[in-house]
């Protein structure tokens, strides 16, 4: 509306040369139609470019970057947080025709797809081969792989199989400046691929993705249990997880959502049903699944379930899922607009979170259907409203913010899978302190120094930045950490270089003395072995938090005694070392949180105790493989499981794929990428930590 200047003719012609004249749009209608998505934010672009080949993206990016014109990728536009709105105008990259499934490789269990492939279409193709792709967001019928990667989408199945970032093997990325990169989480060095996932198109554009595909389980059983109250349903869910059963999905719906979705349901529930749990189990044998199902039925009974039904056939199973996945759209029948909140809390806190959410909603006189992924504490209140009623919109916004604050207070996060976009930018202030937000800002600046790619998303902009102090301080870090931090600060002040060694198993496993200018005099060792405490085992939430100097073997032993186990092979070295050296890349799957000290001694904490957390950049992953050069890992929070003795979780210590890394004889050489270097410069401008790596 305020854009009077017309689009630069020269740039337009150049874009036409890249994408073809029929694919560059600057007419009023097209610009208007790309000014919205499924959220409430609005802004018009200056041009829309539709790509017909992935090769066209990089040249277009390069061109626009050089011209200083903002741009952002968009596909289905089903974003719920305004992530695809061009806040600063510029160009929309319409990637919806880049929708080819290029390869399905069942031997290496990978699918190579373009970003515009609709999630469900991939599932249908994979099914022909007896495979599936784990992330299954409720919107899978329309949302695309590109969007799923941008938002780090989850879905019911992620309880067992992890979110998008756990299921991507490699990405082809067009960087903001238009370079093409191929990044995999298994590459030596900091994990740039994982950083891209959930970055909402602010760090680059994915043009090809290699996704992990899984063989379809032999047996799948779906059951539905009805309860007289939401609390009972949640307590049953807690009971199921507490018994060490990991369902393929564990979903809850309250009465309002159920009523809305009823059209799709054939089964009826006993009168007085106020909540249902949808439980799905999978496994290799009928016997195992049937056993688990029996156990679950008993658990539901003790939580006062009023009925428990097992789907008799695939059609009935489909109907149950149609009701769950159609619940959000079904709410669309009840009011013109539905605002889907997306808070996460540690699962044991769910009853509290629900209570608080309900209080908030009634205080604001709002009606909402509650849908939640009960297994991982991800809450989706679907608040009904009419966007034409401005007062109501205000109430919805404020209620949403209060719900998020309550999630943070309960130890959770402000976004499980829908992203921050523009609508939750301000909430980032409540979740993170200024130092962490600055750190995120540094990441963005390293990738996009001119701030042109999907600008003003995720991170609070100047007018959003109200609180400078952290509302909820990080846990006490302990004496050993304090000593270490002080030491780092004083070295930073002196400009002294540091060699982060840990126990010497992973980071400096050759144990040779440093040579040349980095010898003993030039680089002072920093011993982290004093960080040796196991801080907390949350038995209900299945997480363990420990200081980074704790040896892996010791943690395993300790957990075993406590009746738990951890999905890490028997590795030499400390937790911090194993993660920093990426000795075992799949460790990313169980890493939930991390406290880190940077070169200047400032402390940042990332993640937390929830499996799903896409609030801000997944910066934690950068320290996986950072080899101590980005910062010193102080503590880690890891996901645990019940010890295999009691119930088999199906986890077997895998065969080491990266053998050369693990035995330490022939470490894979890490050659920093340009973006590794840029990040290093941002985090440690004086090159004080393990300086030889970026020498």
């Amino acid at each position, binding site marked *: 509306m305020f854009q009077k200047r017309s689009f630069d003719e020269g740039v337009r012609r150049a874009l036409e040369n890249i994408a073809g004249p029929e694919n560059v749009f600057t007419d009023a209608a*097209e610009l208007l139609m790309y000014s919205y998505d499924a959220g409430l934010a609005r802004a018009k672009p200056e041009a829309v470019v539709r790509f017909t080949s992935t090769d066209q993206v990089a040249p277009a990016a390069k061109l626009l970057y050089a011209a200083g014109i903002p741009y952002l990728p968009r596909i289905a536009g*089903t974003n719920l947080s305004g992530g695809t709105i061009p806040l600063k105008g510029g160009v929309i990259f319409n990637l919806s025709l880049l929708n080819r499934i290029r390869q399905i490789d069942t031997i290496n269990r990978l699918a190579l797809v373009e970003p515009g492939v609709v999630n469900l279409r991939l599932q249908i193709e994979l099914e022909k081969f007896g495979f599936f792709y784990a992330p299954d967001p409720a919107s899978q019928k329309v949302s695309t792989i590109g969007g799923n990667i941008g938002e780090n989408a989850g879905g019911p199945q992620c309880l067992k199989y992890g979110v998008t970032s756990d299921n991507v093997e490699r990405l082809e990325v067009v960087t903001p400046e238009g370079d093409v990169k191929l990044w995999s989480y298994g590459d030596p060095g900091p994990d740039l691929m994982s950083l891209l996932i959930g970055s909402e198109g602010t760090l680059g554009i994915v043009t090809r993705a290699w996704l992990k595909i899984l063989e379809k389980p032999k047996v799948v059983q779906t059951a539905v249990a009805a309860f007289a109250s939401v609390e009972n349903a949640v307590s049953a869910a807690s009971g199921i997880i507490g018994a060490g059963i990991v369902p393929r999905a564990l979903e809850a719906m309250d009465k309002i959502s159920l009523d809305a979705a009823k059209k799709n349901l054939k089964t009826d529930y006993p009168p007085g049903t106020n909540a249902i749990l949808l439980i799905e189990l999978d496994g290799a044998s009928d016997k195992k699944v049937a056993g688990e199902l029996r156990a679950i039925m008993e658990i539901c009974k003790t939580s006062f379930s009023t009925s428990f039904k097992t789907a008799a056939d695939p059609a009935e199973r489909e109907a149950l899922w149609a009701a769950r996945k159609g619940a959000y*759209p079904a709410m669309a029948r009840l009011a013109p607009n539905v605002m889907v909140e997306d808070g996460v809390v540690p699962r044991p806190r769910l009853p509290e979170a629900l209570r608080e959410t309900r209080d908030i909603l009634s205080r604001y006189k709002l009606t909402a259907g509650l849908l939640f992924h009960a297994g991982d504490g991800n809450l989706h209140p679907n608040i009904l409203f009419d966007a034409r009623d401005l007062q109501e919109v205000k109430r919805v916004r404020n209620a949403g913010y209060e719900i998020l604050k309550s999630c943070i207070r309960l130890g959770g996060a402000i976004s499980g899978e829908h992203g921050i976009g523009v609508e939750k930018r301000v909430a980032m202030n409540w979740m993170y302190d200024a130092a962490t937000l600055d750190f995120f800002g540094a990441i963005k600046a390293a990738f996009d120094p001119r701030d042109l790619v999907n600008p003003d998303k995720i991170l609070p902009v100047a007018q959003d930045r109200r609180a400078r102090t952290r509302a909820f301080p990080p846990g006490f870090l302990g004496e050993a950490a304090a000593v270490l931090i002080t030491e780092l600060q004083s070295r930073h002040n002196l400009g002294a270089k540091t060699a982060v060694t840990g126990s010497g198993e992973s980071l400096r496993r050759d144990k040779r003395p440093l040579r040349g200018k980095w010898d003993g005099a030039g680089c002072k060792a920093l011993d982290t072995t004093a960080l040796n405490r196991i801080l907390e085992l949350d038995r209900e939430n299945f997480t363990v938090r420990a200081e980074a100097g704790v040896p892996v073997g010791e943690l395993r032993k300790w957990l075993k005694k406590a009746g738990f186990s951890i999905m890490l092979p028997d590795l030499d070295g400390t937790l911090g070392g194993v993660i920093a050296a990426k000795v075992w890349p799949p460790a990313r799957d169980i890493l939930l949180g991390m406290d880190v000290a940077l070169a200047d001694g400032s402390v940042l904490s990332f993640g937390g105790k929830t499996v799903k957390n896409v609030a801000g950049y997944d910066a934690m992953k950068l320290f996986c493989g950072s080899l101590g050069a980005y910062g010193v890992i102080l503590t880690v929070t890891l996901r645990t499981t019940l010890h295999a003795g009691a119930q088999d979780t199906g986890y077997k210590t895998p065969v080491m794929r990266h053998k050369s890394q693990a035995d330490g004889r022939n470490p894979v050489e890490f050659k920093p990428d340009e973006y590794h270097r840029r990040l290093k410069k941002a985090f440690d401008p004086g090159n004080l930590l393990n300086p030889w790596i970026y020498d």
Partner: protein
Amino acid sequence: MTKYDINELYDHTQEPFHLKHLLTDLGERTVYDAAAQCNRCGYCETVCPTYMLTGRETISARGRNQFLRLLIEGKTRDIDSARESFSTCLLCGACSSVCYAKVPTPDLVLEGRRSRDGYGRGFAARLGVDLLLNRRGVFELALKAGYLLKRLGLAALAGKLGFYDFLGLPALGAAQDALKHAPLKFLRKILLKDPALKPEGKKEAAWAYFAPCGPNYVFTEVGAATVALLKRFLGPGVFTDNFCCGLLAYNYGRVTEAREFAKKNILRFEELKKALGGFTVVGDCSSCVAFMKSYEQLFTEDEEWRPRAKAFAEAVKDILEALPTDKIKGRGPADGETVTYHDSCRACHGQGIRSEPRETLKKIAGKAFVELPESDWCCGGAGAYAFTQTALSERIADRKIRNIASTQAGTVLAGATSCLLQLNAGLKKKYPSARAVHYSVYMDNLTR
């Protein structure tokens, strides 16, 4: 009735040419409320043919809903900029089918089209509709003249003379290549001569045949087959001697005339009802049948006609759903012959008819019946669409033809006459091993 009484789409003088309220799945709504019900979830984009082929939001169902809403709200005032968005819509209704709130995008798009200056007020459209409404004899004479030219091998001349444009039927002109035999005797005349179909002297009837314009003026054999089927399986019935259902006028922006057509047909229905009691009005072109089922929507502001329109609409049935599956008997198709079924948009999306014709077909054809992939993907015919949006229409049709070819069926059945025109034109060019046949004709052949 609504909190939001805004309408920047057209000024009050235009009101008679518009629908004020729509009868949606969620109840009676103002056009604005119906458009505002779209919450932009995007599910329609998984089925909207124009979006799927182009990947452009601007010509997607969601985009069209948003465009209309922005126009109503006055947030954009340039109605001409919406031209592409609205004119590319096939009105297939696949979006509404998949939409949980059943936002009536086709009705909204038509409202948008009607708001454009001069839309539907061109000379040809006006004259065509007027002739059809008030001077049917002249209309029929002119049409026959066109057909005659065609028979004389002067098809191109007929086209050039703008005969079909003149009649407001550009689609017919565009499709005339596909017309193997243009009838010189129209169905109405034939049926009026059939003594068995006369209402005079009858006390009751199970059915009354409604002859849509397609079977009446183009595919007379379809109407004949339908009547034969009805006689065979539903007992005695009558011919309604009806008028055009009004869809043509409605789709070309002439709501007032559409109401006139509807009234004429309702009156005829009431007359017959007085003499015969209750009966089903059966039509054999899904587009017309679907429109007649929505007659009430034309009269939401008219207390007198609204209940009468409703009563009429409730009596209407598509031949696709009218045949009693349990009573159907017949011989299967010849060995090696296979048949598939194309869901005409106004049957599946417009009326929700999917399983009925399949069940009846399976009973007769058995294993010879094969499912068509994407059977509810629009054929691209859509009235004059093939004529006005040639490039898009062809791509839409190509996908349909490809799917038909993949079944290797020799016959593809459809329930709407504009599908027959479009499918046969496409098949002739790209997959001549198959031909499109009306459901009635096929069923009549096998149950005779």
